[in-house]
């Protein structure tokens, strides 16, 4: 599988490329290498090394405050918005490019690494405008093309049949689950390669959750999905690989089946069996 490397994220440091850790396999799209991360003086991530495979669903699990959301938000540099945060050590490479290098344009990064938030945040605009928001930013205004993308994205997010008759009604008129799927549709409309999901179902009821999980299964063939979740069953149901974090450290990272049936680490075992967390 070949993923076209975008020009702007060209590998610049040709020589030390061989320094990439052995964990980085052929299908690795995100390569996190010995990362320490700080909020001011508080260390939130401690020596995280993790390689995420392309077109797989990777789940980050762990108790509150374990750093899983922090790590997720490092991947599209949303943490830049918070004052006093910094990656103190290590590198995060996407397509082999260190995304914290000064010549990386964070705007271009975020176009390729989309995000769905814990609290669904449709803009107070119409459904149509919500979906086309990202494309219009890029200067696309061809009506036929936009219409096409809206339909494709909404179908992709399994929302088309529910909203096709009211595309120009406000996105805030939808139910909670529909709003979250609208946010997913909005994220996939700009054709990212990676979609980060930060507890996308934590505010949804079981029926809406099931729909979003179903959607994740459908999206896995087109996108690399990284999902942070509090809900272990969710990780078990919909992810290929699972990383368990505890107190800012990566405790265990393996195939989801192994994590839940045969965890190597006693802490992981205690967490997935519900003895703490």
């Amino acid at each position, binding site marked *: 599988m070949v993923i076209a490397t975008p020009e702007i994220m060209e590998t610049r440091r040709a020589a030390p490329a061989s320094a990439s850790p052995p964990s980085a396999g052929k299908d690795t799209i995100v390569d996190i290498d010995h990362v320490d991360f700080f909020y001011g003086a508080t260390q939130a991530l401690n020596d995280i090394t993790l390689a995420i495979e392309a077109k797989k669903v990777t789940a980050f699990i762990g108790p509150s405050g374990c750093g899983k959301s922090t790590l997720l938000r490092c991947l599209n540099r949303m943490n830049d918005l918070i004052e006093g945060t910094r990656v103190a050590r290590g590198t995060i490479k996407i397509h082999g490019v260190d995304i914290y290098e000064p010549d990386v344009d964070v705007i271009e990064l975020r176009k390729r690494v989309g995000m769905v938030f814990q609290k669904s945040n*449709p803009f107070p605009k119409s459904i149509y405008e919500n979906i086309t928001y990202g494309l219009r930013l890029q200067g696309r205004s061809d009506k036929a093309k936009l219409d096409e993308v809206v339909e494709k994205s909404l179908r992709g997010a399994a929302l088309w049949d529910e909203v096709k008759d009211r595309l120009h009604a406000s996105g805030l008129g939808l139910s909670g689950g529909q709003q979250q799927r609208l946010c997913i549709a909005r994220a996939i409309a700009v054709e990212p390669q990676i979609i980060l999901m930060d507890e996308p179902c934590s505010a949804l009821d079981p029926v809406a959750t099931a729909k979003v999980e179903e959607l994740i299964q459908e999206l896995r063939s087109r996108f690399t999905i990284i999902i942070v979740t509090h809900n272990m069953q969710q990780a078990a149901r919909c992810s290929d690989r699972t990383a368990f974090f505890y107190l800012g450290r990566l405790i265990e990272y393996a195939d989801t089946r192994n994590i839940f049936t045969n965890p190597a680490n006693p802490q992981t075992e205690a967490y997935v069996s519900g003895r703490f967390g």
Partner: protein
Amino acid sequence: MSTVSHIFRTPPGGVRRGERMVFWLFRGATYFVLLCGATVFLNIVIKGSHTVFKAEAPFINTTFLTQAPESLYIFEWEGKKREMGDREFRAFKEQNPAAAKVETESYVYSAGGIWPCIVGTVLLVVGSMTIALALGVSAAIYLNEYARDGAFIRFVRLAILNLAGVPSIVFGLFGFGMFVIYFGWNVSLLAGWFTLAFMVLPVVITASEESLKSVPKGFREGSLALGATKWQTIRKNVLPYALPGILTSSILGIARVAGETAPIMFTAAYVVRDKLPWDVEKFGDFFFQGVMALPYHIYVVSSKIPQNDYTERVQYGTAFVFLLLVALIATASIVLRSRLRNRYKW
């Protein structure tokens, strides 16, 4: 019944009576405020409406609303008392040469109307609010979206708050020294615009910042996560939702800008001016002319000329029109605000 003693009886002592007294104190204070407001408004509306409205068609005193102020001449002619404005009296004298020698009483500004004052006030409000909103919203965006919180920004905020407490006459003197004399703009619309704009800037900045703050963080994050730049995010996904709040603050600003006399008396207002503002030779002159304004006109007719039945008409009439005008501008902003609110609700 009352002889039966049970546990839910009011215990002896004045506690409950005290409650009632406090309640009546507050209620009384509220009613007193209402009474004061009603007295002021009704006084102006009743006396003013005699000037602005009239009994026969078209029911509105068009002269008062569309003419410039003139002197009022009162004289006896053929046994009857006549009242005439300056121009009318001159025409009358041409027709009846004998009238030239008649004994007259005259009162300045008591005939004609207040049209140039209405025009001037509208121009001052529109211009100064445009400047205040452009500067104020920009500053609020900088403070709320771009600036990193630190000692300097806290100092800036403090300075803005202090600016709000500066008396308007001080703004007037500042505008006089800065714009009229130092910049050499003379008494002009431009000098008045900037003086008034500076006066309402603190209100506009503070309120704009508040309404920017009230836009949920999720809208900013969602937009940035889609690859929007900071400015794109602010322009498309923050500012539109903050506009209703910003407009609310500007409504308060409008009332102040329209109403203040002190800042314009040295910077923009003329006691009387024959030409209307658009009556200029070249476009550039438009900005460098003084105008008449309603609050200043009220000041002039109330304090610079003798008080009697004839002058009272123009005093109350002007005040009434002034109130109507401010109400009209405020209503327009409120309508605009509620339209925007309906468009963006969350």
